[in-house]
């Protein structure tokens, strides 16, 4: 039976069903329904909910809980995610699994509270210091967000790295019908042989740390991390193509903007303009090969990156297209959201 749920609440419930038993956060609009929901829900399943004294404290609590083997998460919005960057870098350095949700709002600074995608660089290029990435998803519907959240801890555990769900104010606030999956059984989760849960003693003692003073050792750590990113690309890469096959104009967009773009593609087709949409679902790894393949098609004349920013993902699109075809940009920012009609108008001008 499908249920009408707000994005934030649906993600929170999916987290619990996916095995989340520890949440640490600090309030910020537009993601407050996640902690609000979990503050009631986690105690029901024997989990732990803490409203920390700050975002910095919250991410370090995640660090600690993840180190002890718990399925731990935090959620925030842009300014709060900036505060968490040091902790995220440490968690990546210590090779710990966790889930981080960012319901992006306009920036820089405190910015506004309306939807934005201006944290793309921060999410996919490594917002903190050092050579690292996370598995980053940009869901476009509440159902997709639920499905991604439900499996996020499995992926995080498998690759021993944080999974980030990069939403925006819209996906957090929108209500849609969702099918909630069954509760996963925590007893069936794989054992974490590295966790500092009190079982490793003496010679088998376990240490969780991100400090490697020896250059050779740290270099090995960096290579190990990047081997895993290669695995991500082989196993976890996801994207969707819509009417790309015969398209002359290919829009590249992710998250809720991809839905708005889909309506624009439909409207453009009605006007006789052969538009298509390529929607990255994983933002890291990025579907560069898929874009390069499309760029090589003779029918494709131009790409348009559509984003709620001044142009961030477009850089990855350009790297993928590698000069084969022109890549144009259409974006709104500051918390303003484009309508399908805005995109149609932009594309019409581009094809003239």
């Amino acid at each position, binding site marked *: 039976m*499908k249920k*009408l749920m707000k994005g934030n609440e649906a993600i929170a419930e999916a987290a619990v069903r996916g095995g989340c038993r520890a949440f640490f956060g600090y309030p910020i*609009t*537009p993601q407050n329904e996640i902690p609000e929901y979990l503050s009631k829900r986690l105690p029901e399943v024997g989990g732990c909910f803490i409203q920390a004294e700050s975002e910095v404290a919250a991410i370090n609590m995640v660090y600690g809980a993840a180190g002890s083997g718990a399925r731990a998460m935090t959620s925030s919005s842009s300014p709060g995610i900036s505060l968490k960057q040091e902790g995220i870098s440490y968690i990546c350095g210590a090779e710990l699994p966790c889930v981080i949700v960012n319901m992006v709002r306009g920036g820089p600074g405190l910015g506004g*509270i*309306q939807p934005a995608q201006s944290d793309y660089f921060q999410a996919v290029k490594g917002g903190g210091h050092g050579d690292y990435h996370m598995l980053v998803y940009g869901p476009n*519907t509440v159902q997709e967000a639920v499905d991604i959240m439900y499996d996020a801890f499995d992926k995080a555990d498998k690759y021993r790295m944080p999974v980030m769900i990069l939403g925006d*104010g*819209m996906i957090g*606030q*929108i*209500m*849609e*019908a969702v099918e909630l999956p069954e509760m996963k059984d925590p007893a069936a989760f794989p054992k974490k042989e590295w966790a500092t849960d009190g079982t490793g003693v003496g010679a088998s003692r376990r240490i969780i740390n991100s400090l490697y003073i020896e250059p050779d050792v740290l270099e090995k750590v960096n290579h190990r991390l990047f081997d895993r990113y290669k695995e991500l690309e082989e196993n976890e890469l996801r994207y969707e193509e819509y009417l790309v096959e015969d398209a002359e104009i290919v829009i590249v967009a992710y998250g*809720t903007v991809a*839905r*708005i773009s*889909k*309506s*624009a593609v*439909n409207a453009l087709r009605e006007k006789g303009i052969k538009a298509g949409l390529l929607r990255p679902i994983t933002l890291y790894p990025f579907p560069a090969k898929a874009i390069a393949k499309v760029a090589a098609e003779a029918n494709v004349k131009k790409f348009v990156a559509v984003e709620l920013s001044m142009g961030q993902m477009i850089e990855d699109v350009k790297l993928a297209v590698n000069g084969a075809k022109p890549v144009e940009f259409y974006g709104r920012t500051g918390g303003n*959201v*484009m*309508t*399908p*009609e*805005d995109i149609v108008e932009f594309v019409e001008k581009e094809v003239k």
Partner: protein
Amino acid sequence: MEEKIIIAGFGGQGVLSLGQFIAYAAIADGKEVTWLPSYGPEMRGGTSNCSVVVCDKQVASPIVAHPDCLIAMNKPSLYKFSDKVKAGGTIIVNSSLIPDKVERTDVKVVYIDAASLAMEAGNARTANIVVLGAYIGMSNLFPKETVKKMIEAKFANKPKVIPANLKAFELGYATAAK
């Protein structure tokens, strides 16, 4: 089919819940739906609106630039959105708070005295349900009985208010279905 609706008014008028009722009715009727609220530093007395898109397949854009129907619960909302309604679309005007007449001639306009009808239903707080009734009566988007069952289900934890809400729905429905 695809029906795009903007519902706007003062915070506290039940604008967001009116949109949610339409969304719940859509689900009950087997349709796909998105409900997107304006969110911000808003409070009772401030302005508030939501966009609802009902579709027989998955909704693409939840953002509505040109609605098929505008439900204006107060005067600022009518002036903010009335020009955006599609030609041939509908505007439902809460005439209890909006004395003005809609100047456009290319849209259907339904005036409904929501406050008086809500009083007649026995509960002043049912004005948004009166308007829900008017919208369903005018659009025939969902069967009347589906919506009434949904109202009963939504107020299941407050059974005392169900009769007034059902009456409010009927009064609104009858006004618009004329």
